């Protein structure tokens, strides 16, 4: 039972960003008992939040209106309160109203909806491109603008979570994260090698199908450093639930160092990140580990 944990989380409504330790960058992952969307990390997700904040009151109001009307007729027009029923079966005015009012509400919804849609879908001039390829059951990342290295990111095993060099999460942490610099506009190319996958990153407001034979593109820009988690979101077989996505947003100098290391050997490059986080913590765990 996880009631205590959940009650605590309910108390911290919508606060799903938790900063582990002191100066560590924020990690974004689902919090037990969470009720709403994950906190935003990109301009697109900002608009998603704004739009959801418009939609939620509208749909709650409509549901409560229907509930209230039902409660009213059940109280006022039950057999005891109203023994003889009326025979009314037409009222042109109310019929026009309940046709026109929903149309008006839909128009109100449509304006921010289209603004979000076109903002999200029209890709601005990007600083660089990363290509990711979904495989059964991991993700290949390529950096064509930074030396064209590539690597395959797998989920870490459950037994490694506790001993992982940085804060790690079951079913979310990968052995080799995708890394981008703070403030860069990144163009993501998404495709797949075998079956359809989906590269999803909740905090970015991104969910893009990875389809064999197609090259989909999307974009994001993150202005604060952080660690972000997402999960494959298109059924892809046996280990569909176990091919997560992990993105580290780091300062430009750390990114440059990581790029340099990745051009040597991408599978050793995460050491640069660990060293960076250790430095933030004022520790030198990398040295002692060696």
């Amino acid at each position, binding site marked *: 039972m996880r009631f205590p944990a959940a009650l605590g989380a309910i108390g911290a409504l919508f606060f799903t960003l938790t900063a582990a330790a002191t100066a560590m960058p924020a990690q974004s992952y689902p919090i037990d008992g969470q009720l709403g969307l994950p906190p935003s990390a990109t301009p697109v997700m900002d608009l998603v939040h704004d739009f959801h904040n418009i939609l939620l009151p509208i*749909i709650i109001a409509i549901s409560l209106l229907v509930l209230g009307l039902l409660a009213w007729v059940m109280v006022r*027009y039950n057999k005891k309160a109203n023994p003889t029923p009326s025979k009314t079966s037409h009222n042109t005015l109310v019929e026009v109203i309940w046709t026109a009012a929903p149309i008006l509400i839909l128009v109100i919804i449509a304006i921010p909806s289209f603004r979000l*849609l076109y903002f999200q879908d029209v890709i601005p001039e990007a600083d660089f491109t990363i290509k990711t390829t979904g495989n059964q059951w991991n993700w290949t990342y390529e950096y064509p603008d930074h030396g064209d290295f590539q690597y395959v990111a797998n989920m870490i095993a459950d037994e490694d979570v506790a001993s992982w060099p940085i804060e790690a999460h*079951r079913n979310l942490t990968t052995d080799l994260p995708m890394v981008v610099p703070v403030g860069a506009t990144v163009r993501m190319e998404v495709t797949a090698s075998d079956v359809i996958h989906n590269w999803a990153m909740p905090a970015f407001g991104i969910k893009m199908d990875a389809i*064999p034979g197609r090259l989909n593109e999307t974009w994001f820009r993150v202005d604060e450093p952080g660690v972000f988690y997402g999960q494959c979101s298109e059924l892809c077989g046996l280990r569909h639930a176990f091919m997560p996505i992990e993105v580290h947003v780091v300062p430009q100098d750390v990114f440059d160092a990581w790029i340099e290391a990745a051009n040597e050997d991408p599978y050793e490059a995460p050491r640069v990140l660990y060293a960076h986080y250790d430095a933030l913590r004022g520790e030198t765990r990398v040295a002692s580990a060696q």
Partner: protein
Amino acid sequence: MTDATATHHHDDHTPSIWDWKRWVYSTNHKDIGTMYLIFAIIAGVIGGAMSGLIRWELAEPGLQVFTGQDTGWGAIFGNEHNYNVITTMHGLIMIFFMVMPAMIGGFGNWFVPLMIGAPDMAFPRMNNISFWLLPFSFALILISMFVPGVGGDNGFGGGWVMYPPLSTTGHNGPAFDLVIFALHIAGVSSILGAINFITTIFNMRAPGMTLHKMPLFVWSILVTVFLLLLAVPVLAGALTMLITDRNFGTTFFDPAGGGDPVMYQHLFWFFGHPEVYILILPGFGMISHIVSTFSRKPVFGYLGMAYAMVAIGFIGFIVWAHHMYTVGLNVNLKAYFVAATMIIAVPTGIKIFSWIATMWGGSISFRTPMLYAIGFIFLFTVGGVTGVVLANAGIDQSLHDTYYVVAHFHYVLSLGAVFSIFAGFYYWFEKIFGVKYSSLLARIQFWLFFVGANVIFFPQHFLGLAGMPRRYVDYADGHAFWNMVSSFGYLIMAAGMIVFFVLLIDAALRRRPAEANPWGEGATTLEWTLSSPPPFHQFNELPKIK
């Protein structure tokens, strides 16, 4: 519409219910309707047990059921692939073998001829084959779970949408071929049924019953079967292309040969979206009758109600790509599908408000069917408004394929379609079986269902907003709490299901004789002018409708 002439009794021709020929060779719409209902109950129990395995697996983080580990009794339920098989089969069974047979085959067969004053369906023998194809189709799809699917694992685990390449190169075993054949046969059954209903409704209405005097349930079935007739062949075509891609070297959906996996999705959802209206429209019809009967008032805005269903049916064919916002559609195309999808809210709103207006000024008695009908109206509204949220392609990037979607479509189907089926079942129980049921047990079942289903599905909105993807056998630890709540809800609903079977046994043992019309003056359609159960052959002299 109530003025039926006295019916002549031909009960002496009624064969014994223990005579197997009565059922296997049946050409009687009421017997076939009863068989459809029993079939739907059996399929519903199997599909419901599968959802129990799903909720058991998801009750806690980690693998509970589909561990792939030998537990001492062997790996009973298998590994993560078998979880995918169970979710796939749950969806296909509930759609094709529970809701559709119950609504169209069961209630449609029973009450379309009775309500339009016809002696039987237009093509009684075709009606027989429509039904008897289904058990074989169902057998095929159940057998598919026990033959090789992919690698060393049995069954097809590609989701009810069956997207290639997962359903082609991703499942190289014969299991999916069996699923395709099962759906082809079920599709033939649906198309034959659709032809039968269209012919019956257009040609066999009693004298004086114009289309605009036809009961709304008949209207709903008419719209539904038109959707079936137009949508199912598209599914059959897509499935046939999957067969040839899998077995005969074609590349309709394989980019290596110039095909495109997305083309399958367009074909599937051109069928799939009308399909979800096929599942709910007959429920709309039933709810209209029930609300009117127990409010002792005629349906408010009859023509608006009828043409709202026609409009929903039509719009249902032009919104399919809202299931595909993440495949990389052109942005203008997405904008069109956003606009078209949101328009559905208008005729749906007309129906919701017209039901409430039917109750307004009425004299409402809260009998069991009315409880289900009121529950339906509210819960369908909740499912409807989340549909408006999902219609927006921009926010759908966050919610697509998460539990928000699962919550949405279970609110409109598990709480919408299933509640309307139970509403109809209790509305017509006496008429169908000729005995009364225990009102107390029925009310207990309603409350267990109402509470249980909401506890299952409401928390799934939170899971979806937090980003939990659907079809996941295991999830991030941060999704644990609401999953646990949701699984407790299943136990409540399962208790309701047990009460339902106690109710059936109780009714069968006590055999309290039914009344011809237990609901009084509010029940105005023709079936209430007949005895309960109706004579084996009714309306040998056609009723005249004023």
